[in-house]
């Protein structure tokens, strides 16, 4: 009995080895890394949906070539992300790796991909290292540099003359970066800067402290479940009417269904909004709603969609000759595709130069629908990130 078990196991292992042959046809192979398990899997789902929609729009042919797409789950762990990237590079022989939500995963994955001579198209995380000293001609970002979004909020609140701001962020690298970016443009008085525990669920203590300090405005960065919890508790504590709440990466199309009217009145800054009026975006949002049961895509999705379109523009420009890396780099730098954010330009570090808007969560079209995020005004026009000067690339 035991011998049979072992034989079967050995046979399965051997089968696994040969089950993945290296194909030699002229296809485009794209690897997409995101988080598909755990609570943050909801972001990965949105990104994957958008990638699939992009492929549909391109009739499953990127740059005119048949396309194979591989999805990998980084489980929010940099070493797993790296392993997934290596599997895509070595086993699936991908030409492009795209995606990655988290900065620490990106810092492990991007150098792995570029060192292997393949393109890395980042569609979310924008760590300052990759925008500055560690920039690379094979790394393109279709999202932003992490600091830009809070910088926009800082500028807005500075220009609006708001004083006595109370800051809250989780105590980890991204949390600190967000508040640093905010303070780069906001020069007014800060009442207190509070760092909460990563993954914290209960914010009553912080809310009581906040109320006792009596600020004029509150600015928070609380992504994912933390944001949902904070928003609910903020609303339940009756603070909505008392202290205007500003945030970044806390309220978006993915978290609104969980908080509904508790999000009303929320102000965020972002480079994109679902109501941005350009041809590509209206098509993206409209078709996304049609394909995915009325759901509205988030900015994570918009970035991922643009990532595929960027790759498409590169491959098209070299007429499918994937060996012509220099040609693709030159083509992608031109960003000759219709982006969901409107006009798309790259900075010298291959990060986008883009507008940033102030968004507000307003009531939806019908009394029963969820709030929607809508643009109120433009805060930055053609904003460049603060690390481009550290990047040695010139073109």
């Amino acid at each position, binding site marked *: 009995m035991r011998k049979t078990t072992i034989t079967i196991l050995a046979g399965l292992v051997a089968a696994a080895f040969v089950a993945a042959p290296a194909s030699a046809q002229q296809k485009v192979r794209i690897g997409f890394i995101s988080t598909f398990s755990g609570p943050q899997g909801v972001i990965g*789902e949105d990104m994957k949906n958008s990638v699939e929609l992009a492929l549909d729009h391109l009739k499953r042919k990127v740059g005119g070539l048949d396309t194979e797409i591989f999805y990998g789950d980084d489980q929010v762990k940099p070493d797993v992300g790296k392993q997934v990237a290596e599997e895509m590079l070595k086993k699936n022989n991908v030409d492009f790796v795209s995606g990655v939500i988290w900065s620490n995963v990106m810092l492990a994955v991007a150098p792995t991909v570029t060192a292997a001579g393949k393109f890395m198209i980042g569609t979310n995380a924008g760590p300052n290292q990759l925008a500055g000293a560690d920039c690379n001609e094979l790394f393109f970002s279709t999202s932003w540099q992490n600091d830009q979004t809070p910088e926009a909020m800082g500028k807005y609140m500075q220009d609006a003359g708001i004083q006595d701001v109370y800051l809250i962020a989780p105590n980890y690298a991204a949390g600190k970066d967000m508040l640093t970016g905010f303070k780069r443009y906001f020069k007014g008085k800060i009442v207190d800067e509070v760092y909460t525990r990563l993954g914290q669920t209960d914010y009553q203590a912080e809310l009581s402290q906040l109320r006792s300090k009596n600020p004029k405005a509150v600015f928070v960065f609380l992504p994912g479940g933390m944001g949902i919890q904070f928003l609910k508790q903020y609303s*339940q504590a009756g603070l909505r009417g008392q202290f205007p709440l500003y945030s970044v990466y806390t309220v978006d199309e993915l978290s609104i*269904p969980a908080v509904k009217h508790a999000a009303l009145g929320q102000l965020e800054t972002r480079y994109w909004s679902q109501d941005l009026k350009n041809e590509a975006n209206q098509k993206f949002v409209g078709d996304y709603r049609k394909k995915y049961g009325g759901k509205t895509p988030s900015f994570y999705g918009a970035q991922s969609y643009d990532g595929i379109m960027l790759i498409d523009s590169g491959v098209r420009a070299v007429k499918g000759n994937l060996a012509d890396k220099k040609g693709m780099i030159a083509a992608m730098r031109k960003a000759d595709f219709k982006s969901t954010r409107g006009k798309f330009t790259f900075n010298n570090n291959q990060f986008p130069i883009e507008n940033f808007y102030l968004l507000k969560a307003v009531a939806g079209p019908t009394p029963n629908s969820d709030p929607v995020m809508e643009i109120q005004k433009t805060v930055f026009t053609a904003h460049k990130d603060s690390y481009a000067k550290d990047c040695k690339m010139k073109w």
Partner: protein
Amino acid sequence: MNFVLIAEQTLNGLQLGVMLFLLAAGLTLVFGIMNLVNLAHGALYMVGAYLTTYFYQATGSFVLGVVLGLAGSLLVGVVTELVALRTLYERDHLDHVLATFGLILIFNELIVMIWGRAAIYSSIPDYLSGHVDLAGGLHYPVYRLLIIGVGLLVALLLWLVVARTRLGMLIRAGASNRAMVAALGVDIRLLYTIVFGCGAALAGLAGLLAGPIYSVQPGMGELILIQVFVVIVIGGIGSIRGAFLGALIVGMVDTLGRAFLKPILATVVSPTAAETAGPALASMLIYLLMAAVLAFRPAGLFPARGT
């Protein structure tokens, strides 16, 4: 530092403690009586939150949602015990750990398959969402007071059951000497199922109370589970009194630490040092507390000999 704030934070700490108690009570009973390390306890908390949220939205009545959610948690607990856990009692703790970890994965993914990955919307019913004016200008949410009230009531009920009823006597006896209880002719398997079911119901109760104020999402149990383990270790395994006092201590220390540690530190070190050290220390505080307790009382503060 004003007294209203301190009072408010104390209430917050009390409420967090009570929430932890509901979870800790079930876990400590199961571990103390059945000697079962149940990592999936957090999953039962999640089930309670999901079922109540679902039934509340389906029926429009919060009360009905609570009743059905509670019944559902009890049912899920009993079924899990009968199907998966029965054979584990005689096994090593380590087998419990691996098997219940497997159960966590199963529960989480089943929730995902039914309700999707995104957090679902949960809310407090309107009649519970107001505020109460307590003495001295303290404005406290009704719902949070309700949680405190329910928690204290449950603590009282549990104490009555454990100290004054035959079932409670069996539970106490089982916590001290399982073999003897079985030898005395008590149907130990029925006792176990009842205890586990109660534990699951308590976890479900914690879940349904937490649902409206926390995020109802897959994996929500694991976020709070580690704090619960800290509570039962500080309190003493198998002891309800230990779970109650341990939970209150942890709730208080954690809340007051988060609120006041940084300002207190800022009086002894520079503001920038307090800025970095404060939050880091606040995260570690309950672990430091646990290490300190274990250093002086290796069996916890109120071990099960005679609760």
